[in-house]
């Protein structure tokens, strides 16, 4: 009796020790990241001969994106039986909160979907692998424009693979536009004209839009006025005149006051994007990135069309943004296998027939041609809009500095306070400048 208990205890201790030592070894390999090329080579060779590779991939998004991404993964696993892919997906906010502890623990997934506002932070802290060595070998870049690939460059390395181009747009419901008595939204229209149209919508009992995401559209507004949100070198804010801040947020505030934009408490009460007034047909349109068009049509029973955001100086405001990246983590032990998956993602036609430009217009010109017959009108509209925007925009400029995530949160917070009437735009401008320069100055 006593003996069997001893044996049981002994076994438990061994299992426990084994679990601990397993942790140690993985920490060791990920710990010394300096001579990665040699080490990962041997690692992936052994993985390949050991014929089973398990890749972890993480992304953010909404339900339609989760669905098709899982299908693409399935397709890849069918074609590469030796690869198993473990997906980890979440909504935008949860995603970044999940990623940072993983980064601190050197446990990042092999493939990470990255955004412009976080890529500097992760790249500069040595969390991401340089993708340059994989170009031309694992990742076929022959059909991808140089400019597109350069979108993932931070300092001297390529830390993210651009998955597609995006441009800001106004995605509107033509039926409701007609109902409020506007035939067409002109290609360029001033901010005053925007407010007039919004007033018309409000008079007819509709919302004109559901607001503007503060960091994105404030930057757009600044660009139209010859400035930008961040200084080129990332050391501070990219505008000197706080009047620009006041002007922009006054417009936003007035939109809420005339009831052309829902009040912030109304928006906060929504359970999810499916309940958005524009999706339900109670509003004219949404100001957002072009790739979100497909998701919008997917959620709503209405059809939508493209127009440009406000402002006469459209060309300076608009820019093509890498919609998102796939990055490979520095702690990944199978970078080649991860790169091979990225290659499949950007170059495989069948995969892109599932993706259909939800992560931005496909970067490969061949893929763009090949899937042309398969895309719906909605997707074609996105491609056409981005192609148009490419001709009518100015370069994006330097990527967002490290700390951009915190700046965005502060700006969102302050714009919320303005919307709730807790603070005047004038005071907000000053507060934001102090906070932002404190964050970027460190």
């Amino acid at each position, binding site marked *: 009796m006593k003996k069997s208990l001893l044996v049981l205890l002994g076994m438990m201790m061994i299992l426990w020790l084994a679990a601990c030592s397993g942790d140690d070894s993985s920490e060791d390999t990920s710990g010394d990241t300096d001579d990665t090329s040699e080490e990962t080579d041997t690692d992936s060779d052994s993985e390949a001969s050991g014929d089973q590779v398990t890749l972890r991939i993480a992304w953010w998004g909404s339900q339609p994106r989760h669905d098709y991404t899982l299908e693409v993964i399935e397709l890849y696993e069918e074609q590469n039986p030796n690869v198993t892919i473990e997906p980890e997906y979440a*909504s935008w*906010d949860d995603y*970044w909160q999940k990623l940072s502890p993983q980064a601190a623990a050197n446990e990042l997934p092999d493939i990470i979907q990255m955004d412009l506002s976080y890529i500097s932070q992760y790249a500069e802290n*040595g969390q991401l692998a340089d993708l340059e060595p994989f170009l031309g070998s694992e990742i076929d870049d022959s059909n991808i424009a140089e400019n597109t690939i350069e979108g993932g460059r931070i300092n001297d390395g390529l830390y993210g693979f651009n998955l597609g181009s995006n441009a800001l747009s106004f995605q509107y419901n033509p039926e409701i536009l007609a109902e409020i008595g506007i035939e067409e939204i002109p290609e360029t229209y001033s901010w005053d004209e925007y407010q007039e149209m919004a007033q018309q919508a409000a008079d007819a009992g509709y919302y004109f839009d559901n607001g503007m995401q503060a960091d994105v559209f404030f930057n757009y507004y600044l660009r139209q006025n010859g400035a930008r949100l961040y200084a080129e070198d990332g050391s501070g804010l990219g505008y000197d005149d706080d009047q620009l801040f006041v002007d922009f947020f006054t417009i936003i505030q007035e939109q809420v006051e005339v009831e052309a934009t829902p009040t*912030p*408490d109304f928006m906060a*009460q929504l359970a999810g994007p499916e309940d958005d007034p524009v999706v339900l047909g109670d509003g004219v349109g949404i100001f957002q990135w072009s790739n979100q068009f497909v998701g919008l049509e997917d959620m709503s029973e209405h059809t939508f069309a493209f127009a440009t955001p406000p402002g006469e100086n459209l060309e300076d405001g608009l820019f093509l943004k890498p919609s998102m990246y796939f990055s490979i983590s520095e702690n990944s032990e199978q970078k080649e296998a991860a790169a091979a998956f990225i290659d499949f993602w950007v170059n495989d036609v069948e995969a892109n027939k599932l993706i259909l430009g939800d992560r931005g217009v496909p970067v490969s010109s061949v893929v763009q041609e090949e899937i042309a017959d398969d895309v719906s009108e909605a997707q074609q509209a996105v491609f056409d809009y981005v192609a148009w925007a490419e001709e009518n925009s100015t370069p994006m400029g330097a990527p967002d500095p490290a700390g951009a995530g*915190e700046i965005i949160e502060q700006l969102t917070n302050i714009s*919320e306070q303005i919307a709730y009437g807790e603070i005047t735009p004038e005071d907000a401008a000053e507060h934001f400048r102090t906070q932002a320069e404190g964050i970027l100055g460190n």
Partner: protein
Amino acid sequence: MQTHMKQNLWGYLFIGPFIIGFLAFTIIPIIASFYFSFTSYDLFNSPEWIGLDNFKEMFTSDPRYLHSLKITFIYVFAGVPLRLLFALVVAMLLNTASRAVGLYRTLYYLPSLIGGSVAVAIMWRQIFGDDGIVNLALMTMGIDPVRWFGNPTAALWMLIFLSVWQFGSSMLIFLAGLKSIPQSYYEAASVDGASFFQKFFNITIPMLSPVILFNAVMQTIAAFMTFVPAYIISKGTGGPLDGTLLYSLYLFKQGFEFFHMGYASAMAWVMLVIIGILTSLIFFSSKYWVHYESEGGR
């Protein structure tokens, strides 16, 4: 001697897993966080010693910190008494003999088991939604519906209601306390013609006061550390307008969203000090209101 040693060795072997786990996952992190609280540490690069700057920043140049401290105090001082009161009332109801009392006890305890889950947050969104049951009830009483998720004050009260609803553990302790009050006291009082309230204030409350003290201390500490409901209900933002930005949530955001782990560690230590002060205040006050039978009723 030999066998004595051997016996001790067995003891150590058995508690070994706990000791090692306790050292690795509790003591070492506590020491590390104490060190980090004096540094600027971004999780990626090695910590940099900055002395008391983190603490200085908290109280001089971080209005969001002071705001989150304020709403946490509101949460604690409104939530804990309400919860204790509610737990006591339900415990007294359940203390009456009834055949189905076991079933009721289980039912009333259930919310405490599932309180932190995502399902509850989703349910809460339904209950407090625009046409949820709470607003329907308000409207039938002729009161205007409230945008619970859109109004910062309402959102905080929603969190307080959620905590009151999870009264199960305090209720069980109260129930045990009620059972230990001798029935003869009540009988004697009845013979003297005491009303229900006289019995409640002169027998139940004094006899139960040690249990109330225990519950008050435990619930205050737990309330200060509340994180999950605020995180889930505000979708991790602490919104609207930072109305649900409880202390732990702000600490989490500083550490894991803004990568200010040093600052977050400092916040954690300040929280420890605050909880320590509050707890000792409660203990200090207890000699004026807690009645111990074993000390001859003083």
